[in-house]
Structures are given as C-alpha cells and as structure tokens.
C-alpha cells in the first residue's frame, strides 16, 4: 500500500513505529497531487514548501518519543477547504474577488490542527463562496470526480472530497451549510461529518450562511472522522455560537455495535423522486442495519417538503449580508468580480430581507425552521437515529445542471433539513451504481449525538468495507 493511501490511524501507527517518516508521507501525497491534480483540479493552492518544512519539524518531534500523545495529527498531511483562513497563505473562497487575498490570521480550526501537529498540504477547490452542489461554480474551474472524470464530485466542498478520495492527503476539512460535506462525501465514496451546529468553531472560516454553516471534515474511515473530531470540536471564545458542552472522546463508543438501537427511516425522504439505483442502495443498507441487530421503523418528518423553500430564503438572506464586506475598498477585487451564483444569491437575499417582504419570506421561513426542528425533536423521542440517502440522485455529468439552478438546488433536498435543525449527520459510503459511481447514506442524530453517529457508522462500515474500494485514476 502506498503511504498516501493510509488512514489517519494507519499513518499514526506507521509514524509511531518509525516505519516511515512524516517527510516520506508528505512527499507521497505531494507526488499524488502532482500526478493527478492537473486532471482532477482538487487544489487551488498546494503549499509544498510549507508542508515539507512542517513535515521536517514533525520528523524531529517524532524522534523525541511521545509527541504523538499530545499531538494526535503529528506529521499527517491535511488539506483545507479554501474557505479556512490560513495565515500568510492565500485564501480565495474559489472566487475571483479574493483570488489574491492573504489572511493575516488562522481560523480557529486551522490553529487547532496545527497545534495537533498536522501538516497543511494545501487549499482545496470549492464552489465559489460554497455556493453550489457540484463544484462547478468555482472561478478556478470545476474539480472532477475521481471515479469518473466526466462527472461532478459534488459540492460545495468539491476539492476537499476529491483530495481524500484520490489519496492526495489523509483527511481534509469542509463546511456544510446545506449538504456541502455530505453530498461530495457520498459522491466520492468517503466519510463526511456535518457536526451539530456550534460544535466546531466557525471563527476565521469565510461565512456563507452563518446560522447554517457547520464546520466538518472528510476522512477515509469513520474512525478517522472521530479522531479528527476530537481535535476540532469544542467551545471557542471567538465564536459566540459555539456550544459550551464539554467535549468527549469521540472514539469511545466506536465499536459498541448497534444491536437493539432503534433507527428511523423518514418516509418523506424515500419518495418516487428518488433515483432507482440510489433507492436500491438505500434498501440494501437498511437490510445491513437489520442484520446488525438494529430495529428499523418508519417515521414521519411532516415538514420536509418545505425544507428547500425555507433554506433558499434563510440562506441567501444571510449570504447577501455576509458578502457585503467584499466591497473592494480594503482587500480583494470589486463586486463586479462576483460570479453569477453569488450575484443570484445576493439579489435573492436582498429581496427577501427588504421591508414589505421580510414578513412574507424571512419571517415565514424562520417559522418553518421551528417546525422542522420540532419534526426532528418529535422523531428523536421515538428513535435513536435516522438514516436516509444523501442525495436523491447519482452524481451527474459536468455541465448537466449548470444552467438550471433550481434543479441544482433540489439535489440538497435531503441534506438541508439537518442544517435547518442544527443536528449532526454523518455521510458514509453505501456502495456503487451500475456504472461504478459512489452512493452514500446519511445517519442523523439529535444535537450533540456525534458519538452515536460514529458508533452506527462504524458498524455499517465494518459490515460493508466499501471504503476499501479506490477509484481507478
């Protein structure tokens, strides 16, 4: 096995036992990037020099013995979605507006990763400002799906998902406002976590829609996801919306199995709109859960159908305000550099917040938000977790939906509700379509139930081992 194909756990073991050095591991990833990034376009910036310096430092620390105990990611190459502010490293949001912007500070998560010893290998591609479901809204060109380069990798965290799926790094960060981690994770046969809203600091991450943005990550396995979450989760005095709950050890219940757990299937998520192959994979997954001893019951989330409508009012409203600072006065290029999708959302949001329309749109959407939250609260009184497909369709071809924003928006129909309700959701691989495109399922739990999601995800992963299949690059 090549070093760049390792998981976090495997890389840690190898580094600990001195089977290889961090520099060797980092070089393996850099080589993979050099080889495949030209065709996959996963990275906007590759920080080769800095990464090798960090790897050298990690090598020295590793020689000193127990550094891995206090620095759980010591020497491990990590990629960052290019929304995460990185001190002295260009942070573009994949928009021409910020194409030359170099932040003077690190986002909280980047600081935590650095403190954990991670080697930052580069900044990944995305739909500009995280606006999109396919990755095609990037001003730096779309990232490609490593399973079939004619297909989209899913967005908005397109490059982060591709970089992990194609073994250009060991793990990567993402943001999920309406599905931007889970959808690309499912399109790439990898694990994506959208944590509980407020469980990971948003400080320093370029905001899309502040009340919906969740900061998560992509990993090759569920266990890696839990390991990564151990580092990023926790209250931050710089983000007033972070939750005060003490963080736990997220690997503790990984291998407890799911026997006796009650898992709900929201009937509104499994409709005739679902692609046949997606539906078939989901039904297979249900069988596996049953086989693992879980009790499967049907539940109802009655306001699901209003999810997209509410989301496409709340989200652009916040976007229109959050993008106001990009006025070209102090940094970045002028507003004319915004792409079509950003302009579309700025106009939508400005309209829905305008006096005379606020009550009819924003206020009503917030009322729907309360109802959707209540749907989940009610459901979680009866079940431990919910499972559903991540995306109603298989990955689509590049260009297929680019001129039909509404169709593109509908690909988030099954993911936006978790953001609206602020609950955590874990996307895990669930197999492949006939033409070998990945399909994923999501496991949703009540607020702060990430441990349970890892437990369920781990059981499913152990039973299926889909993650072991790699794209043929």
């Amino acid at each position, binding site marked *: 096995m090549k070093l760049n194909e390792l998981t976090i756990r495997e890389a840690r073991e190898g580094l600990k036992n001195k089977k290889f050095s961090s520099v060797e591991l980092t070089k393996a990833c850099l080589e993979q990037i050099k080889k495949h990034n030209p065709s996959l376009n996963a990275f906007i910036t590759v920080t080769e020099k800095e990464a090798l310096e960090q790897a050298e430092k990690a090598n020295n620390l590793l020689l000193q013995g127990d550094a891995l105990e206090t620095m759980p990611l010591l020497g491990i190459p990590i990629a960052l979605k290019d*929304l995460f502010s990185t001190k002295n490293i260009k942070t573009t949001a994949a928009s021409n507006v910020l194409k030359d*912007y170099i932040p003077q500070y690190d*986002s909280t998560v980047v600081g935590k990763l650095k403190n954990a010893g991670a080697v930052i290998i580069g900044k990944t591609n995305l739909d500009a400002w995280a606006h999109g479901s396919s990755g095609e809204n990037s001003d730096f060109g779309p990232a490609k799906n490593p399973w079939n380069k004619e297909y989209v990798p899913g967005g908005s965290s397109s490059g982060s998902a591709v970089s992990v799926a194609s073994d250009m790094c060991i793990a990567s960060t993402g943001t999920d406002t309406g599905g931007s981690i889970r959808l690309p994770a499912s399109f790439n046969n990898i694990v994506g976590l959208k944590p509980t809203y407020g469980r990971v600091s948003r400080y320093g991450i*370029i905001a899309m829609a502040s009340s919906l943005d969740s900061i998560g990550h992509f990993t090759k396995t569920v266990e890696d996801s839990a390991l990564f979450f151990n580092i990023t989760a926790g209250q931050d005095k710089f983000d007033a919306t972070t939750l005060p709950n003490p963080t736990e050890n997220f690997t503790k219940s990984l291998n407890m199995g799911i026997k006796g757990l009650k898992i709900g299937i929201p009937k509104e998520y499994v409709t005739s709109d679902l692609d046949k192959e997606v539906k078939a994979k989901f039904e297979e997954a249900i069988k596996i859960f049953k086989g693992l001893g879980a009790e499967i019951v049907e539940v109802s989330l009655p306001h699901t159908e209003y999810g997209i409508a509410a989301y496409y009012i709340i989200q652009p409203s916040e976007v229109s305000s959050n993008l106001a*600072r*990009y006025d070209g006065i*102090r940094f970045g290029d002028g507003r004319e550099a915004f792409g079509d999708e950003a302009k579309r959302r700025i106009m939508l949001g400005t309209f829905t917040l305008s006096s005379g329309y606020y009550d009819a749109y924003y206020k009503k959407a917030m009322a729907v938000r309360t109802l959707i939250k209540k749907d989940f609260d009610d459901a979680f009184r009866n079940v431990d977790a919910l499972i559903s497909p991540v995306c109603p369709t298989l990955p689509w071809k590049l260009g297929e939906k680019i001129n039909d924003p509404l169709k593109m928006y509908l690909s988030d129909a099954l993911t936006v509700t978790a953001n609206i309700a602020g609950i955590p959701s874990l996307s895990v691989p669930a197999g492949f379509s006939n033409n070998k495109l990945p399909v994923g399922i999501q496991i949703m739990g009540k607020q702060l139930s990430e441990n349970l999601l890892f437990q369920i995800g781990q059981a499913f992963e152990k039973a299926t081992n889909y993650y072991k299949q790699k794209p043929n690059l």
Partner: protein
Amino acid sequence: MSYKTIIGLEVHVELKTKSKMFCGCSADYFGQKPNTHTCPVCLGLPGALPAPNKTAIDWCIMIGQAMNCQIANFSKFDRKNYFYPDLPKGYQISQYDQPFCEKGFIELSTGKKIGITRVHMEEDTAKLTHQGDYSLIDFNRSSVPLVEIVTEPDFNDAKEVVEYLKKLQQIVRYLGVSNADMEEGNMRLEPNISLQKEEETSLPKYKVEVKNINSFRFVEKAIEFEIKRQAEILNEGKTPIQETRGWNEIKNKTISQRIKEEANDYRYFPEPDIPPIRFTQDQISKIKSQIKELPDEKLKRFQKEFGLSAYDSEILTRTIETAKYFEEAVSAGKSHKISPKQIANVIINKKIDVNVVLPAQLLQSIISSSQTTSIDEGKLGEIIIQVLKEHQKAVSDYKSGKETAIMFLLGQVMRQFKEKIDANKVKAVLTAKLK
C-alpha cells in the same frame, strides 16, 4: 401663526469599556495613531466573528435602569445592512425590535417627564477623514461600544432639550460608563424637530433631523434656527421637507444634507453570529445593584441630610467628583465642628477646584480663617477710648441714629491690631462703650 414645537432626540453615547464591543482591541481610540487598535474582527476581515462584550451589555442595561426603563428578559442583536466606507462588514450590529431597555423616562426640573422610547446597544463605525480628493479610514473607532438612547417627541423647546441632555450626560458620568464628552465625540446627538399647528392634535407629517451638533450651546442654536426656518415655510402655507440637515457653526445655520424620500431600508434581521440573550430577574437585579446613588437622589439627600438649599445641592451634585469631595470634607469637618453649610459655601463661593485642593487642605483653610487670637481686654478698652476720641463725628452720627457709623469705628479699632481678632467680640465691647 403660532406653532407648537415638537422635538424628539436620539443620543449616542460611547462606552468607556476597556475593550471594544465585539473584540479584544482597546476601545480607547482618542488621539491614538490611526489603525493601531485593530484586529480581524473590527476590520471585518473574511471569517471574523463578533464576540459580545459582557461589560458593555451590563452598562447599557445600567443606563436603561438609570433612565427608569423596563429591561427585556429576552433580547437579541440585529444586523443593520447599509453600505458606507466606514462600515467594514457592510452592516452594523445593532438592535432592532427587541432592545435591552424600553419605556423609561427622565424627569425635568419642572416635573415634566420626557419619555424614553428605548436604550439599545450597537457598535461604532470607523472614522473617515476627507483630504482633498481622497479619504482615509481609521478603524480604531470601529466597533467601540455605542449606546443609543431614543426619546419620545416630548420636548417643546430647546431649553428642555438642553436640560435633558445635561441630565443624561450627568447620569452616564455618575454611572462611570462614559466620559460623555461631546467634543471628543463620546456623546453625539440628533434632534428631530417639527412644528405642529396649534389646532392640530396628531404629530406633524414631516420631521427634520439635525446632525453635526457637538455642544449644548449649538443644540440650542440649531433648534432655535430650525423653529424659525420651519415657521417661515409653514407661514407660506407649505410643508417643510423631511430631511437631514447639518449644523454649520460658522454660518450659524442648518444646511440640508440628505433628503429622505422614504425611510432607508436597512434590511434588519437577527444577527446569526450572536445567540439571543436571556436575562433572569436575578441578573437584572444584580446589574441594578451596581448602580450607586444617581444625581437626583443625591440632590435630595444633600438637602435633607445636610440642610442645604436646592441651589447649593444642585451645584454640589453636578459632578460626582464634587459631591464626593463635599461629603469627604463634611465627614472630616465634624471633629472640627465645621458645618456642612460652611463647607458648601466655601466650595461654591470660592469655586474650589476639587481636583487640586484636597479636602483636608480645604478644612485647614476654613479653620485658619475663623481662628482668632484672644484679645487683651485692657488693650482693647484703651484703643476703643482712643478711637472714640479721634472720631467724634462718627460717634455723634451713631448716637443720632446712624447705626452704620459703628462699622467705621469698628474698622478703626481693628486696624490697631496686627493679629486677627474676633470682630464680633470687638463690636460688642464697642457698642457697650457707646451707650
């Protein structure tokens, strides 16, 4: 035609907290080198988030409490969206429909109550300096805590406005939450002025907002000017334009700045970066307990406790420093049998600078000015006889009923003593001798 003047007031007070409203930068920007008190938050850099300053919120509530407001159990911040180069985020974090404090009042000396609509918390903007064909932005002021106090349109003349403003300034200074210095811009005011025809009962359909007023003197002038200007327009049968005007202190007039066709659409919505804030009754009471005696209470107490006149009490309580000084002097003066009235008189009449003269020094000067050497009775008798002999005319004047003549004689006697002697005692002896 005669009109009733209707004035409402918006006042912004900058708090003197150590740090800014939403970041750890120093809020003390006055006279500092431009752009030295900045960070990603107050510069509005991508990804930066606001972390609210608890002290500032407590102080805002304290101001509301001092102005007899109801304090909200549930409140939140909102975004006020508008573009201006001094506003780095493209929106100001303010409060819209659920401010911390509402429905208060301030009582004027006439007993008239001015209604306080709301007291809310927001952040200051950066400062623009225009030079020739370019403008400079200093972000030191960006995000300094700002409290906005809005009144009902309850004022009917400039005098009431000035009294209210002085009271407000005095209250926030008493609370120790702001320097409220108008020249430094810690306190900014915007009156809304309109005139109502005598027979009208509803508020006028227009109002004129006046900005750029940086002293109490100018607010009076600006209001007087507006009353005259608007009356002239109304006399012609027209309605003044709803607009924002600026006070020009050189031309001594208000000048049109911006004509408001409609209200600005600020697209307010709840600030998603700051969770709503809930206060328990206990927390609200705790903040209230931090409020020490306010000017009105102190004034009443001074009258009652020290037997001072309202006039004296008002002067002594004008600033908390003077009041504190007075009380220190009174308590120290007890052992010397110096009355509060004596101390009050000296402070007021001699215009004592409380920052220079220590209370102990003040007492010393009162003591020494009233201390007299004991008089040699024999020497006094001799001198009196001598003086009466030399000033026969005055003696006869006195005896014929011109009582003031005794003061002349007293003066003559006193002159003979080099040391300070008790004039009352001398006068008594002198009177006896003249009988």
